[in-house]
């Protein structure tokens, strides 16, 4: 049985919206303390809608696929709609992820939320937020010798 679903493989091999946006309205950059990976999401916002989105990811196959999926899910959505996207939404849209890889989808969803937060902070003259380390998450799926 393959480790990853076909959807994951598709997004891994043909990632959508890779790149940077110059003069982005919001940037979410997250470092993952579990495995040291980094995800960066750029958004361009117009009339409260996400007009364009791009990402860069240093991470595993699941991390690349989840970032790609997040960008696809939010493109053209209102900020309010985009904010509702959680890591479960992303994982479901990819037909599931192995338990040990769920934290990669956390990373993607968190980076998105951070980009929106950054957009708002900038608008209020408080931004940009810069790079953030995600909090340690539940590692109950991780097998370790105790």
């Amino acid at each position, binding site marked *: 049985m393959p480790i990853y679903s076909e959807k994951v493989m598709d997004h*891994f091999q043909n990632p959508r919206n890779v790149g940077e946006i110059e003069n982005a309205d919001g940037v979410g950059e997250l470092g993952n303390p579990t*495995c040291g990976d980094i995800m960066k999401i750029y958004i361009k916002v117009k009339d409260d809608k996400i007009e364009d989105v791009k990402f*860069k990811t*240093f*991470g*595993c*196959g699941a991390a690349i696929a989840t970032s790609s999926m997040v960008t696809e899910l939010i493109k053209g959505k209102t900020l309010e709609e985009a904010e509702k996207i959680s890591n479960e939404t992303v994982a479901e849209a990819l037909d599931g992820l192995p338990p040990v890889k769920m934290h990669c989808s956390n990373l993607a969803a968190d980076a998105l939320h951070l980009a929106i937060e950054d957009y708002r902070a900038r608008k209020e003259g408080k931004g940009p937020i810069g790079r953030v380390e995600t909090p340690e998450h539940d590692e109950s799926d991780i097998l370790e010798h105790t």
Partner: protein
Amino acid sequence: MHILDLEAKLKIINFDHFAATSMRQEVKEAMDPFFINEYGNPQSIHALSDEPREALARARLQAADLLNATSNEVIFTSSGSESNNLAIKGTAFARMDKGKHIIVSKIEHFSVLNAVKSLTKLGFEVSEVSVDKYGLVDPQDVKNALRKDTILVSITHASNEIGTIQDIKEISRIVHENSGAYMHADANTSCGFIETDVKELGADMLSAAPHRFYGPKGTGLFYLKKGVRVMPLIDGGIQEFGRRAGTENIPAIVGAGVACELAKKELKDRTAHLLPIQKEIISGVLSGLDEVYLNGHPEKRLPNNINFVVKYIEGESMLMWLNNNGIMVASGSACTSKILKSSHVLSAIGVDPALAQGSLLISLGQDNSLEDAAFFIKELPGVVNKLRQMSPLYEGIKKENKAQKDK
């Protein structure tokens, strides 16, 4: 993981022989009769047991021959991990009246590191000796770590990650000259590819894994020098000289025996076949890509191991792309490990955790050729560049370089 592009690339290149090797035809043929026709239990008295008993004795002789031991010094276990556990826990339980101190290196396999970790919960103390940047243990460090109550020193003969070969002979000499401790060599990665002569190595115990050298899974070898005592981990009948109870897995043992015989016969040819491929890959990759480094020792290394660090990208995504090109590799990155921790071996040789994420681990075997090496060298840069283009780390570096140029 499926390969989407199956039609385009039909050939599968296995560059992950440390995970699994295909059994040799001779091995399988030798095993075949013992599943259905010669299914007897070697411990019975009646005629059904005759052939299995003889086969068991033959396999033990073949294994002893490879290790330069006598056949009553060879114990069949279920795996390399079991052999390592038997060496460590078996010694600990047999000798706890003499002391509770054990020495290992920082780059041991988890079947060693986790075995000693379990023992610490029972009051044993463990010293982990460091290695240099090539992964070499300094025998003097072992000497300095020895104590009056040291009962065992266990060092890997060759690393399953970076391929570095240790000077077991010298370490054994130092251990025996300066203490009453037993010396165990974990040869689970080296056996079948380089000499594992127990007399030459001077070890009291040695573990080996025939499935790594074209034998069947489900067996392990354990050399226990005459007069050295370990407590069994599995108690029961008198199988394996009372050191490892349980009805013998005769088909697997027979296969292991043949794999040992083949290894002994072919050892030199194997090196002669593997070395040029290894050399080709190392020089091809290092010259074809920037910011790639070789881990492990340049010379004192197994002929079938290569370990690179590719900067700015992560190992699993590299592995997945190579997989799609028909090339099967492994990685020591945190993301590929089931415990999301990067390789303890890479960290022991001083590789920065961010760099260790770009770990690429290749292990060669009988089915590899120079053409495989050429194909890999041709495919890798495309994979690396694709992932680097996507990496926020590489982006930062590019900007830094540009800023420096602009200055």
